């Protein structure tokens, strides 16, 4: 195999730019800051972004379907607050969690109905629910924090399974399941048809409305789960949770190679995206670099990673100059 061919084979790997960036950071950090790879730091690194990670699973499906869901940033605190209120009213842990998730699912259902019925872009539908929900959270709590949960509830945010923190364990299980389902399950595959060509999906007999309901409800439930984990992790629930989290979640999904125009992407890329975000964040704390620089470095790394990705991607795809406009737009 010639060197050129070798290069071409290597560049076939998806997310190569991102992967390279991540590996380089890890190597650099491991050399200069040995604590970076300590088990406790790795655990904290994981725990720090586990909420985003869980939500990113659902968001991956949504964005592949050429949709978007901003409302998760409202659902996450909403679910945390609701579970707290239910717990405080002695509904019992199971019932409280189920009720909170049910309410979260309801939000997803409303989103989907607006998208289906009004035929308005999901961005605006879910922005409306986000704004409304943030308001609802305030109205419910009057800005006060909900506290006083029973210790048994702490498990969901702080407990361990096989020595691994429960949230990370839960995420790992879900990530594996989602990866497998998205790749191989007939029902989940519909997402690629809907995002790839909605007319084709319709003519193939896919029930688009029902599927939209499915993914938006699923996404909301995941945000609800993240909210419950947050409530348990911080033993409190507050309207201030999850401000700006929607952008972080969307970012990791897009960094991971899912295109906003839909039809393309997978869970693996999203997980890399999460890793990227978590590592950059942790790097700053570890190095003690002036925190003011964090945003600048984060933004630059983002551009570099995506630039590399596109650059290598362009090599991979050959000369189809024109092929590319639509792919890289919204």
């Amino acid at each position, binding site marked *: 195999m010639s060197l050129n061919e070798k290069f071409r084979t290597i560049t076939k790997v998806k997310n190569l730019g991102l992967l390279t960036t991540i590996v380089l950071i890890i190597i650099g950090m491991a050399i200069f800051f040995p604590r970076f790879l300590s088990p406790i730091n790795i655990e904290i690194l994981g725990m720090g972004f586990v909420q985003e990670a869980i939500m990113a699973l659902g968001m991956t499906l949504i964005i592949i379907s050429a949709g978007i869901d901003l409302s998760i940033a409202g659902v996450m605190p909403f679910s945390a607050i609701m579970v707290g209120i239910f717990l405080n009213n002695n509904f019992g842990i199971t019932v409280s969690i189920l009720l909170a998730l049910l309410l979260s699912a309801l939000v997803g259902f409303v989103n989907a109905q607006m998208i289906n019925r009004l035929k308005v872009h999901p961005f605006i539908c879910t922005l409306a629910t986000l704004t409304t929900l943030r308001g609802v959270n305030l109205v419910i709590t009057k800005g006060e924090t909900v506290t006083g949960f029973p210790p048994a509830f702490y498990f969901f945010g702080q407990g361990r399974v096989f020595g691994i923190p429960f949230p990370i364990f839960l995420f790992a299980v879900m990530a594996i399941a989602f990866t497998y389902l998205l790749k191989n399950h*007939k029902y989940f595959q519909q997402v*690629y048809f809907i995002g790839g060509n909605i007319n084709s999906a319709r003519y193939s*007999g896919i029930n688009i409305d029902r599927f939209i309901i499915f993914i938006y409800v699923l996404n909301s439930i995941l945000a609800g789960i993240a909210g419950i984990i947050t409530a348990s992790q911080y033993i409190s629930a507050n309207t201030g949770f999850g401000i700006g989290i929607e952008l972080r979640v969307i970012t990791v999904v897009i960094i991971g190679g899912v295109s906003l125009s839909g*039809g*393309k992407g997978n869970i693996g890329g999203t997980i890399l995206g999460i890793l990227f975000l978590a590592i950059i964040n942790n790097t700053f704390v570890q190095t003690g670099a002036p925190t003011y620089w964090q945003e600048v470095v984060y933004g630059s790394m983002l551009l570099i990673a995506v630039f590399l990705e596109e650059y290598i991607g362009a090599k991979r795809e050959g000369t189809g100059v024109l092929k590319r406009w639509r792919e890289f737009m919204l």
Partner: protein
Amino acid sequence: MINYILKIEGISKRFFTNKVLDDINLKIKKGEVHAVVGENGAGKTTLMKIIGGIYTSSEGKIIFDGCKVNFSSPQEAINSGISIVHQELSLVPKLKVAQNIFSHREPVNRLGFIKWAELRYKAKQILKHIGVDIDPSTLVGDLSVGMQQIVEIAKALSQNAKIIIFDEPTSALSEKEVNLFYQVINDLKSKGVTIIFISHKLTEVFKISDKMSVLRDGKLIGTRKTKETSIEEIIKMMVGRELGNLYPDKSSHIGEKIFSVKGFSRKAKFEGIEFDLYKGEILGFAGLVGSGRTEVARSIFGAEKPESGEVILEGKKVEIKSPRDAIKNGICYLTEDRRNWGLFLEKTLRQNIIAASINKFVNKRGFLKNREIKEKAKHFIDYLNIKPADDKILILNLSGGNQQKTLLAQWLNAEPKILIADEPTRGVDVGAKAEIHKHLRKLVESGVGVIIISSELPEIIGLCDRIAVFNEGKITGILEKDATQEEIMKYATL
């Protein structure tokens, strides 16, 4: 009693205030091949979409297999055994051929997981059955329009339907694939499958149909047994009068060389392409699906980079790096894929007509000259008989043929020196087609160089003064005007 599988009774359809189908009554026997013909915008596609559950009719009823049906979604129609090959390609470009063929009907195990090996195998079988060799794992987006059309046919076949509706399935196919398609039809017929077939290629319709129905302006003009009618009668029913010559006279005098292409190559796509174009002639590109005609045209136009080669226009070498350069030099390319690469579906007819020539419709300071634009739009609407004649209508709501006419108007409006037209009459009705041919001939007489890429051999032979035949990325022969179909096919399949 005769066994009618499909009875259409009093179907009407209105889009807002516009009535496009008016009290259609049609009976189709089990196992027959029933052709539906008519001018562009007559309502053929709309009628089929109603049968297939994509639109709901405003009035009337459909009786399928003895029961009254009222499909509210394509899913229901597919499940009861009605499949459609759509006029506008409807595949997912980012997915593989096999996934597209079996979209939503993938072989799965009990838990709903897709059996990939079986999926690939079945896809392969179906493609083999049609007689083409496409790897089921290639992405549909990487296929040419013609190949995509075949995938679309494969998709319909895989649905094991009782009725298959083909809405202009052959408009993007060349002779060889069309023949394969005839075999598929015969095969289906022998299995008792009913076929409804829409086409503007009347010879083809006569070759394969048992009966034909003619639509005009949303009304059913009549149904004839194919054996008992003639092309002339059908055309008369379609357009309301007789049509003269289908092709204009060929050029009497060929002038000097105005355009040539030398040594055009791109790895794995085409190699050593060379040809000249003379004043006053129409040059045709013939070839099988995927023979590289489109690629060459796109490369000349600057939409893709060739690895080597030069373009000489009126004796001067021109540097073309992008379509912009090409258009500035007067070289225009009318794409074969109007939906993805040509038209602006969500924009109005008027906006589409000026798309490639906005700079011609602005004053010195760059402001649009709206009155002129309006007049120009009206001119083309009349000239090409685009229906409905409303320059504010969204292209999305036009029939396929009228969309194609819009695309043509878009490029005629750019006033090219050299026009490379890739399947310019795809989906256009016979009458309009003859008009377009006449116009192209007039264009040539006024000094414009015209290259026609067409998969329809009669069109190539009838229209072109010389024919370059493509075969696997090379020009295997340049034939003079009196070439026969057999000759062309010989070079095309060397």
